[in-house]
């Protein structure tokens, strides 16, 4: 990777060419939108609310299904290869078996890695959140590792009693990396309408407000596992990225920032490198907390 920024899953991933755009505009790696075996239309609008300081979404994992997603991924892969930017294919499923099947399908597009989205808060009763129970998370990792040859990353939720326990379980199961964190469950109500704003009533919180939660999760996990972490959650600036790396991340996910800053990826990358230069850091790995 030319820089440690990773376009987070769910942003722009609808189109392969948009992933290429993210690669051209400053991402060191890109993640596609999570796809499932069958197409999903997601929830009705409103599905995404952008406010000062945070975003709440309940898109509901809409995607065209793994078979169609392969075409988008192949297009992304073709364009990103020219930029030297790896493509991470994100998958979601309702069962361990379906995770393995979806992984096999997206592998046709030759992604550089697979992200297991086992922590989306927006699917309600359709599927349990595998990342809530260590054993379940581990089973998904084992099943997917059995069918694919590329690195597998487990995306975890902070909304558990102990994220470290889940992280250790996926590491032991053979995960090659961890993406921490997914959004936090939240809700918005419009008082005058006397209704939740999101049609799904609840959604996942992202954006600046998520950063302290993400920093803490990444910090705690990094002290207990050896595998690399893509620290994701609330990174809006280069300084936020520095903090995430200091917390223990090896790479930094960028998502909601895209809607707050027209050229978020390029600017965050430049700010990160400017911070390093000004403060005498020659390597990303040098960004560490004082002992």
């Amino acid at each position: 990777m030319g820089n440690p920024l990773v376009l987070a899953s769910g942003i722009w991933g609808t189109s392969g060419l948009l992933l290429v755009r993210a690669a051209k505009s400053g991402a060191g790696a890109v993640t596609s939108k999570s796809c499932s075996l069958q197409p999903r239309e997601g929830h009705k609008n409103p599905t995404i609310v952008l406010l000062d300081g945070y975003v709440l979404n309940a898109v509901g994992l809409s995607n065209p299904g793994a078979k169609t997603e392969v075409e988008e991924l192949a297009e992304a892969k073709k364009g990103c290869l020219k930029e030297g930017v790896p493509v991470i294919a994100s998958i979601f499923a309702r069962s361990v078996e379906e995770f393995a099947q979806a992984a096999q399908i997206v592998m046709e597009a030759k992604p550089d890695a697979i992200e297991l989205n086992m922590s989306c808060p927006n699917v309600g009763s359709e599927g349990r959140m595998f990342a809530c129970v260590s054993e379940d998370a581990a089973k998904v990792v084992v099943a997917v590792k059995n069918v694919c040859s590329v690195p597998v990353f487990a995306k975890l939720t902070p909304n558990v009693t102990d994220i470290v326990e889940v992280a250790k379980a996926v590491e032991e199961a053979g995960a090659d990396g961890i993406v921490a964190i997914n959004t936090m469950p939240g809700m918005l109500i419009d008082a005058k309408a006397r209704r939740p704003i999101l049609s799904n009533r609840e959604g996942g919180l992202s954006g600046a407000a998520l950063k302290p939660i993400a920093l803490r999760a990444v910090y705690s996990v990094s002290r207990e596992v050896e595998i690399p972490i893509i620290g994701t959650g609330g990174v809006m600036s280069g300084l936020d990225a520095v903090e995430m790396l200091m917390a223990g991340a090896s790479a930094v996910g960028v998502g909601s920032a895209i809607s707050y800053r027209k050229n978020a990826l390029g600017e965050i990358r430049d700010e990160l490198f400017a911070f390093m230069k000004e403060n005498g850091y020659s390597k990303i790995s040098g960004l560490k907390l004082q002992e």
Partner: protein
Amino acid sequence: MLPKECKISKVEDENQATKTIFVECKDKPQPGQFYMVWVPGVGQKPFSVAGVSPLRFSVCAVGEFSRKFASMKKGEKIWLFGPYGNFFEPQGKKIVAIGGGYGTGPMRYAARIAKKKGDEPIVVIGARSKDKLMKGETGVRTVFTTDDGSEGMKGNVVDALKKILQEEKIDEVYACGPEKMMGAVGKLCIEKKIKCQLLLERYMKCGFGMCGQCSIGEILVCFDGPVFDAKIVEHPEFGKFHRDCAGRKVLL
């Protein structure tokens, strides 16, 4: 920003299926900008601004949401997220603003603003037949076209544009309507070397560049537009398909 609660102050019939809905809202967005209109319990969709003071939207009852929106009455409320997007930036004095179907709303607004500034707009409004035409803009030169000749010039808006371009010197063309119509207008303007801006419409989940649902290849209609230079018509995906709520490509 939290959505703004707005009361409907007036509903005007444009034709059988299309209404223009006026709301009490102090915003003064530019022609081309749009809102995500939320009708609680029904849904939320993007709508281009069809005028200000009072703010208004032209709605054609085509789907579940627009049927409900178009049937709303004075005194009922809608909620607005926005305004979002870029807007028309006039690059000449003599402007032809072409509206197809409910795309006419924002075109009349653009023409009204141009007229106020002292420019010389011409509004071209087209439909299949007389009963499907939108209304003209008072005080602005207006040309109507219908495919069957039941009102105005027989033919489509592109025929009308060709005629105008033959007869007078035009600085710039704006268009909003079905993508195929905008494609034809854009191509003609590129060929004739006339500046042209197109106001695009796509299915959206967010309206501010996150979901990617409104993509035309690497371009996002909400984030990079919705107003684009005519050269967008040369994009291999333009006029071919859009993406549905699952992100599937659907032929236009």
